[in-house]
């Protein structure tokens, strides 16, 4: 970039910044009717206008900051928060990040039109420079909103995941005083927290003396999963219930041994049925073992 270019660019930045400050009201009035804001601020248009003014102010600050093409420019922080709400609300309404990006792109023509009108010669070099700069900063704004919308989408997914966790962790009452949780999938920290809470609750509610953690559906037990299991067992014990871990498949038994995890104090059974038989026997209820039932008792 030559010195001449730099000078022109600076002037353009000052021009556009001054324009944004001066025409703040008009720009905000036009933007308030754009889909991005209209669909979110359905109750009061004034609210939409206020939000738009916030965006105009932030853009002016970005230009003053001199980094119109940088999505990490600190001056975008206020817009990020402002538009974060807007984008999140659009996302909740079912808009995809691409649609939201289009909505932001739609903000450019009205403001460009207003900017051109400021110049005596709207097709002159000076107007061209200013419009170009405005396009750059609006393009950056679009990226900023995209980014915010994407993370809003992630938050939404996270919330849904959380809900799924809760329904996917049913505590079943197998017998009087015996509850069981069939675990499916990887036991990450969030999930094991939910498992522990629902299990402890069930132990109290059902006055359970035995709790069975069935891990047939758990694909892998690493040291973190093991730690979660051990903690759950210890917590159940504190509530006065004995925990039985069932469904440890051969491949998983091997890795547990290689890892050096000590399940020594935990009662384990190969299947849920065996675990139930164990708990019943401990309560003094004898049931014939599955294999023995085929042999007629004498």
């Amino acid at each position: 970039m030559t010195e001449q270019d730099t000078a022109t660019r600076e002037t353009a930045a000052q021009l556009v910044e001054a324009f944004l400050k001066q025409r703040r009201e008009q720009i905000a009035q036009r933007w308030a009717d754009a889909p991005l804001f209209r669909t979110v601020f359905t109750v009061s248009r004034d609210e939409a206008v206020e939000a738009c003014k916030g965006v105009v102010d932030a853009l002016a600050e970005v230009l003053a900051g001199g980094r119109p093409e940088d999505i990490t420019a600190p001056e975008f922080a206020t817009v990020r928060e402002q538009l974060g709400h807007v984008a999140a609300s659009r996302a909740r309404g079912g808009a995809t990040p691409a649609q939201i990006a289009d909505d932001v792109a739609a903000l450019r023509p009205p403001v460009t039109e207003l900017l051109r009108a400021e110049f005596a010669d709207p097709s002159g070099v000076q107007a061209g420079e200013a419009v170009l700069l405005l396009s750059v900063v609006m393009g950056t704004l679009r990226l900023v909103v995209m980014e915010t919308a994407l993370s809003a989408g992630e938050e939404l997914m996270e919330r849904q995941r959380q809900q799924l966790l809760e329904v996917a962790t049913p505590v079943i009452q197998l017998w009087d005083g015996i509850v069981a949780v069939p675990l499916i999938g990887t036991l990450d920290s969030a999930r094991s927290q939910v498992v522990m809470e629902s299990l402890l609750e069930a132990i109290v509610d059902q006055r359970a003396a035995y709790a069975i953690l069935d891990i047939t559906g758990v694909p892998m037990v690493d040291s973190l999963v093991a730690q979660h299991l051990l903690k759950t067992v210890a917590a159940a014990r504190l509530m006065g219930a004995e925990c039985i871990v069932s469904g440890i498949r051969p491949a998983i038994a091997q890795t547990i041994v290689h890892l050096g995890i000590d399940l020594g104090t935990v009662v384990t059974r190969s299947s849920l049925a065996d675990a139930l038989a164990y708990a019943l026997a401990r309560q003094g209820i004898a049931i014939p073992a599955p294999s023995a039932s085929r042999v007629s008792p004498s």
Partner: protein
Amino acid sequence: MEAVSRPVTAELPIGSDADLSRVRQRVRQAATDLGFGLAQQTKVVTAASELARNTLVHGGGGLMEMTSLDDGHRRGLRLSFVDHGPGIRDVELALTDGYTSGGGLGLGLGGARRLMQHFTIDTTPGQGTTVTVEAWEQGVPTARRGTP
């Protein structure tokens, strides 16, 4: 024996819990594709889970490089876990079962070494850590001479 490695087949980021489960899924897939048996798949996935979590928790994030190997007789999988975190000052201590600088069981590193066939740590305090492991196809056991 020098392993002939094909180019890196995948590079996965490790920056969140979601990345950890992606790492496990991809490693499981790769081990299955290579024809590893269920026991070995489980070992490889478990080791990857331990090392990826160390990269995230202790190394502050990084990436995993996955390379498929072929030495002409057997196929294998090499996994490298790379971070630019604090590094490990005392590798022997870190490998000791039960040693943890956090609230873990302190079994991940030593466990991963036992689960895999090759295990190397390249670490510089203040620079970062790279842990590389390899698993090789166990192959069909060759019939012993004299066995009927």
